């Protein structure tokens, strides 16, 4: 990395925005479906605790959605303020995909969110359930379009370049570009795990605080079981995504493995300190021929190394570390979720020990950590390209003075730091308030009869 020139500052600014933004869709995508599940469970069983859980988690949803909307607006502007070259070059492909995201998904979520949040007593019950469904469909469709575009930037397909500008020739190939199915599955599962651990963490915290409400019991159980079911799927999806990257973005995989030279019997580096200047990894702990086995399913398999991409490979250290952080968190999730599921089978929620519940609380935001780490691996791993083989990041940047970018970067940094702190604090505050009113709840059962109130 060179000095902090305006290109690097613009990249840090955009990375900061995307990192901040991605935290909230990661919650709302899966939480939308969880809320629908709670609503349907309530309708099926008539158990009021499901509706209690809904009322608590819909607030978390509203908070996360609000944060997602405002940081999403920021991004749509930063395309223009920071990366005018992006839309000039690939606007013909990126434009329709972004347009469909806003038209089909964003409005759906935003409009029906109002009814989902505040409309329970104003509309017939089925309209409220339908609104919950449409919000969940909207968040997922939103993720679909955005990941289509993002995947296309990694593995562009279905286009030709005329007069230096990209034109789509086959929309089917654009949408179902090579990395799209893997990235979509991997990201949606990441969302599911993030929400499962968020739910498990906050529920465990309430349980430890002495809140024995039926809704805490239900969400704790549902969250642990969801996590236990999703984590093996995620490991498989992640592996397939990795193999897909090997095929289409071998430089990224070489950086992940810190594999400096193309060779057979390539080792699987478990730990080490990659040194890009010396082009070697210090303190390496590796399984001989491990990478060849994992990536080629053959110890003699030749794995491309960084030497195959002179001057055109991503920075090694952040990709290398990001990947290990993501996998490490994933393994912790696996251990915790399966242990919890096994204890639940044996002794129900009472069978969960205090140290285990404390571990769940510590893991409340583990999904965020893994998601961000994975996101950095894939996005930094695409460098120096913005669109692989088509447009470099440097070509797309706007010529702003470094001072201007630095000043606004600082502004965003302060705002985002405050907001993240406030978000986490308010989640625990809400959970605490839930615990505090646990006794009072029984005295004032909420009105559940769906009725149609005229507003006047």
């Amino acid at each position, binding site marked *: 990395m060179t000095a902090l020139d305006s290109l690097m500052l613009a990249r840090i600014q955009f990375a900061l925005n995307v990192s901040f933004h991605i935290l909230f869709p990661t919650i709302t995508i899966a939480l939308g479906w969880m809320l629908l599940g709670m609503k349907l469970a309530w309708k099926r069983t008539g158990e009021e605790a499901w509706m209690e859980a*809904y*009322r608590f988690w*819909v*607030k978390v949803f*509203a*908070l996360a*959605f*609000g*944060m997602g*909307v*405002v940081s*999403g*607006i920021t991004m*749509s*502007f930063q*395309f*223009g*303020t920071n990366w*005018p070259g992006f*839309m*000039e070059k690939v*606007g*013909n*492909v990126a*434009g*329709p995909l*972004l*347009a*469909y995201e*806003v*038209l*089909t998904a*964003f*409005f759906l979520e*935003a*409009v*029906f969110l*109002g*009814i989902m*949040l*505040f*409309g329970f007593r*104003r*509309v017939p019950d089925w309209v409220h359930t339908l609104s919950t469904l449409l919000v969940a469909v909207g968040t997922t469709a939103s993720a679909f379009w955005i990941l289509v575009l993002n995947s296309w930037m990694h593995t562009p397909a279905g286009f030709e370049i005329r007069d230096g*500008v990209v*034109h789509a020739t086959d*929309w089917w190939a654009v949408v179902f570009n090579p990395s799209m199915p893997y990235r979509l599955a991997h990201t949606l599962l990441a969302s599911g795990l993030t929400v499962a651990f968020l739910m498990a963490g906050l529920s465990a915290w309430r349980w430890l605080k002495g809140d024995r409400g039926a809704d805490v019991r239900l969400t704790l159980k549902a969250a642990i079981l969801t996590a236990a079911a999703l984590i093996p799927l995620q490991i498989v999806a992640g592996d397939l995504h990795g193999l897909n990257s090997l095929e289409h973005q071998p430089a990224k995989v070489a950086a992940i493995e810190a594999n400096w030279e193309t060779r057979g019997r390539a080792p699987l580096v478990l730990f080490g300190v990659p040194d890009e200047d010396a082009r070697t990894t210090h303190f390496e702990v590796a399984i001989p021929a491990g990478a060849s086995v994992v990536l080629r399913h053959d110890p003699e398999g030749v794995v491309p190394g960084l030497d195959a991409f002179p001057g055109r490979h991503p920075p090694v250290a952040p990709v290398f570390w990001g990947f290990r952080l993501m996998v490490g968190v994933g393994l912790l999730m696996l251990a915790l979720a399966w242990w919890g599921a096994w204890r639940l089978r044996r002794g129900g929620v009472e069978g969960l020990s205090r140290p285990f519940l404390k571990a769940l609380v510590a893991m409340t935001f583990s999904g965020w950590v893994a998601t961000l780490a994975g996101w950095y691996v894939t996005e930094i791993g695409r460098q120096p390209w913005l669109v692989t083989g088509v447009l470099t990041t440097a070509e797309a940047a*706007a010529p*702003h003075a470094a001072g201007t970018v630095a000043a*606004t970067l600082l*502004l*965003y940094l302060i*705002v985002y730091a405050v907001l993240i702190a*406030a978000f986490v604090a*308010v989640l625990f*505050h*809400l959970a605490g308030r839930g615990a505090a009113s646990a006794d009072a709840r029984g005295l004032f059962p909420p009105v559940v009869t769906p009725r149609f109130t*005229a*507003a*006047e």
Partner: protein
Amino acid sequence: MTPFLPPDWLPVIFAALMGVAILFYVVLDGFDLGVGILTRGQPAAERSRMIASIGPFWDANETWLVLGIGLLLVAFPIAHGIILTALYLPVAIMLVGLILRGVAFEFRAKAPRLQQGAWDAAFFWGSLLAALAQGWMLGAYILAFDTSLPALLFCALTAVCLAAGYAFVGASWLIWKTDGALQVKAVRWARVTLLFTALGILAVSVATPLVSPRIFARWFRLPEFILLAPIPLMTGLLVLGLLVFLRRHPRDGDRLSWVPMVGATALFALGFFGLAYSFYPYVVPDRLTIWQAAASPESLSIILVGTLFVLPVILAYSAFAHWVFRGKASELSYG
């Protein structure tokens, strides 16, 4: 996919769609930004009611901004780059404002009681900052991004006037959606802010032809001058009519309390048509026409198909949401 329209038409259609999205945004987010500006210094109970009146709508309102800027981005990618690069700082300030008010909205209801004051302040300052920044951008756009001192003063004027304009839409919204003492207050606010709004419209109308000989020629030649005369005339009559109406409001039995909101919408629409006529066919003032800046016809066609299907649906379910939350606003409750 083959274009099914003469390719020359597509940029015109998209300019119109973008205009509609921006007009929707200005009126819809205008009322909730305006309500945010008006919350300053109000007693807690009234502040809560004011905010409750916009609760179910603000997310969807801001989505129109994403659509408007999104259409600029996807239909006129080169213009998007030029305009937003030129407006880098006001855009950053607007975004921080929108972020603050958006999250303050959610936080104030959920944070510990002690912090509510801070979130209310963030809601007010965020709303004000966003409105001022948008007004500044309007001024800068009109002056084709000139950065001389008189130009900056003009930007400052449009900033204040657009903020006042939003406060006027906000007050009109409150007249419609509230009653009692709060409604009486809203009538007072509407009267004051309407005067500032009129001043702003006047300033923009005078400045625009003066800075651009091309725009001057578009308005002040025959027969256009006569054909266009209804726009300023109707604007003037509308302002006078609203002032007279507001002197006698609220009326018995809350009759006609929707009139200011309709008037405010009409006022913004007229101003918008005036501006649109001035700038057409340029998307970057005096530099780039919509045809020069447009994306490829194939891409525009594929977006157009989606837009024509989806836009009516969006309008229908937005109307449904407004119908569900019709009537006077009360305290909101979840679930």
